[in-house]
């Protein structure tokens, strides 16, 4: 995994994501999910372009059931964008790179 995408867990979600001083994108994924594996490199590419402006995390829903439950996630990949502790945007499923960039630009 690229160094600019870190793992976030149920126990670190509050400090890493909700208390972040800049916008955060969280990629909810699981090892069994084909589209999640495929979208991973796309997120990595994007994370390089937004370095310093947006933080990027991956959350494995298999190991961390609480956080996806809190946000009503019942499909992956789901991308959530947070700003100031609030959920700003949500993308479900495989989407175009440009759509992800659009919601990130809106969050900055």
């Amino acid at each position, binding site marked *: 995994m690229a160094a600019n995408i870190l793992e976030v867990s149920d126990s670190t979600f509050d400090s890493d994501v909700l208390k972040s001083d800049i916008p955060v994108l969280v990629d909810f994924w699981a090892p069994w999910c*084909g589209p999640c594996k495929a979208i991973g490199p796309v997120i990595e590419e994007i994370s390089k372009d937004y370095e310093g402006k947006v933080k990027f995390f991956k959350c494995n829903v298999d190991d961390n059931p609480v956080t996806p439950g809190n946000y009503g996630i*019942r499909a992956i990949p789901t991308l959530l964008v947070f700003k100031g502790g609030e959920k700003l945007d949500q993308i479900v499923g495989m989407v*175009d790179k440009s759509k992800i960039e659009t919601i990130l630009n809106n969050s900055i």
Partner: protein
Amino acid sequence: MKTTDYDLVIIGGGPAGLTASIYAARARLNTLVLEKSAPGGQILVTDWIENYPGFPEGLSGADLVMKMANQAKRFGVEIETSQVLSMDISEPVKQLVLNDRTVTCKAVIIATGASPRKLGVAGEEEFYGKGISTCATCDAPFFKNSVVAAIGGGDTAVQESIFLTRFVEKVYLIHRRDQLRATRILQERALENDKIDIVWDSVLSSVNGSDGGVESITIKNVKTGVLSDLAVEGCFVWVGITPNTSFLNDAIQVDKGGFIVVNAKMETSVPGIYAAGDVRNTPLRQVATAVGDSAIAAFEAANYIEMLEDQ
């Protein structure tokens, strides 16, 4: 012939586009492959492919496409993450408008595939990702020991319903006719499966729920007109596909369903433009047929480019 940025641009990075790129690279065409998201396409969501020859035990769609992408890379193919917004294909030099620039080329293979069709019923958009899904391998584990519905009766609906039964307590398979359309071997497996309850002659009328997600669906019996509710936590929709052709702008002939019309050489109505795989009018949409289409399309595109250069 004027010089162009590329000989050939292949639009789409699923099995069709990747196969075309392998043939094009080996024909030493200067080729660009464009994929708007990540290589793979629809087979990424297929739990198990057991009818693609050469893999006697079967394999996951994600693994198969990764092998194809690696094979393409071995021949020097580069896949760019970008989208075609529009095309000007009226002249021999084709122009494709991408997100960040315009590229020119001599030939184009459209291998953009298709996307799951939506029913357009109430609640479908609202609950997408909150109980409504089109990917069993991705989302079935969210419905452990739950009751879910699956809509459809073709290969995808039946195969994926069988997959769902590994996780869920029960699947209502809602089908609009009184018999399934899926391949016989899949029908037999579904009919033998105790966890699958087939609801015949019925269509989805609405998906109902609250902030917490899907709570029930309303279905309509097409013979009696009677509406009834089924309590389900999930609803998987597999009612066919729609071609990914929004960038075409009527420049190429399509059929009633919007699929691109081609001849046996995969030529479209515009010289130098080819279509292969799920996006074209074809009686069967499989990985096996997509790769066959693409081998022909790349071969014919190479011939066409050679002919242009000889002029």
